[in-house]
């Protein structure tokens, strides 16, 4: 290869300028690229500058489809451009580009004035995380049934990586469902709840992502179990919700339910 001509800027300089250009600095690439007989340099550079937000906004649309349908294409595009400006992509995979969108919507005007949008973004991000979370073999009912009775009190549990907890302050999961069924029909705006409701999100063995709300005692027991508390402590914790003689059977009932849904990957004797 022949030697470069004089006035060759260092590679790092060119790349810094190119990125500055696609992020909006009009002058950054002046004189560095050629026009052709058919197109001026600005038009050709513009292909990259135009593609940059569009590609990222498309990726956001894939991870936040119902936020997009609530905001509408124009507002979603506006929001996407503001998010890109504030939070340019840094991960190698575009899959993770939306990781800070819920926080962005909660913090930035005008979106923070409609807090249900931030919750919807957080909910969709959590669903996406459940979709491609790590795989793990789940315990089945016979495996639980085979645990010797003397081991039960000290038993602790491990949970599937796709299982997560989502605390909802607005009727966003209900809105998410309604949006899926609505077609082109208007969906009622989410309402603020009187008190937060805990949802569990998970992935079925066949790969479908699921969610359901948890009763207060179940939410509390699940949080304690995920913290590594033993089965006897889980039963004790339930006494705040049910009478002492009902605590054991209720704990067993909830555990059975979790196992049936594929949430539990391990039951360890003390």
């Amino acid at each position: 290869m022949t030697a470069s001509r004089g006035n060759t800027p260092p590679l790092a300089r060119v790349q810094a300028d190119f990125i500055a250009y696609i992020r909006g600095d009009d002058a950054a690439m002046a004189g560095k690229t050629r026009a052709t007989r058919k197109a001026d340099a600005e038009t050709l550079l513009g292909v990259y500058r135009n593609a940059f937000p569009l590609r990222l906004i498309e990726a956001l649309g894939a991870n936040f489809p119902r936020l997009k349908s609530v905001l509408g294409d124009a507002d979603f595009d506006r929001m996407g451009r503001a998010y890109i400006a504030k939070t340019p992509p840094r991960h190698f995979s575009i899959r993770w580009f939306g990781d800070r969108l819920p926080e962005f919507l909660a913090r930035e005007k005008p979106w923070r004035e409609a807090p249900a949008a931030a919750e919807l973004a957080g909910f969709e991000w959590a669903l996406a995380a459940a979709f491609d979370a790590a795989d793990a073999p789940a315990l089945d009912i016979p495996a639980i049934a085979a645990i010797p009775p003397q081991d039960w009190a000290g038993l602790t549990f491990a949970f599937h990586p796709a299982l997560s907890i989502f605390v909802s302050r607005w009727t966003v999961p209900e809105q998410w469902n309604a949006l899926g069924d609505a077609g082109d029909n208007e969906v009622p705006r989410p309402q603020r709840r009187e008190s937060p409701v805990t949802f569990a999100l998970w992935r079925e063995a066949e790969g479908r992502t699921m969610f359901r709300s948890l009763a207060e005692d179940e939410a509390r027991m699940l949080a304690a179990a995920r913290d590594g508390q033993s089965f006897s402590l889980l039963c004790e914790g339930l006494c705040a919700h049910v009478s002492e003689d009902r605590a054991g059977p209720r704990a067993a009932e909830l555990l059975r339910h979790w196992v049936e849904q594929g949430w539990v990957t391990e039951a360890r004797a003390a």
Partner: protein
Amino acid sequence: MQNAAATSQRFAGLGLGLRTDFQAELLDDASRPVDWLEVLTENYLVPGGPPLANLERARARYPLAMHGVSLSIGASDELDMDYLRQLRDLARRIEPEIVSDHLCWTGHAGINSHDLLPVPHTEEAVAHIAGRVARVQDFLGRRIALENVSSYVDYSFSAVPEWEFLEAVAERADCDILLDVNNIYVSSFNHEFDPLDYLNGVPAKRVRQFHIAGHRNNGSHIVDTHDHPVIDPVWRLFAEALRRIGPRPAMIERDANIPPLGELLAEVGEMRRVAARTLAERAA
């Protein structure tokens, strides 16, 4: 490490880029209508779930090529070792016939454009990229192929045409080439060069695979959108590439405006006809 000529028996014939739109239909098709599949590496660099399960299904039925977009071999930033580790682990798990990425850069100072940006054709870039390719091939324990990208800008200080740059990188780095015939066509239109000059300048022995795709012509320039059928001039250029370079695994890429699978398979059929005719003429 094996060289380009020692192409595996499994990696031959005509393939298709696997996309979620039609993956279930294609993987369920017992007639195996293509010879191999190319998968987009980053789609599978996730912890688990259906993407990886589908990849295993594809792997059980077809030889696979792994094609990435995040290597950013031309960047002045440090190599992303987190990416390389994940790439290496996936390649070990999948054992693809080829691992490829692009002769481009994707970001700078930690900001990722998620685009395949052109590298200036300078001596500095050749030396820089050759060194990085060597490190990547050492780390992965296997050769990689670099693909020529479609480009829309031509740096005023580029010292040589793209084909000379591609050859210089591949020779000095000792890596393979994934030759995208559509990208040659697109760039020749955008930068007003003769695509046959490009084909004549490519070191044939390093070419391990062909890509073919459609694009969008805006009149003053062409954008490599992969959202249209392959056009006739690109089929003709594919034939010219086969004439000069010889048979290599070749495939269709379609990334947007994806038609029913039957239409894509019809394009693969067209590719089969062009290849059969051209290679018969070449042998005669």
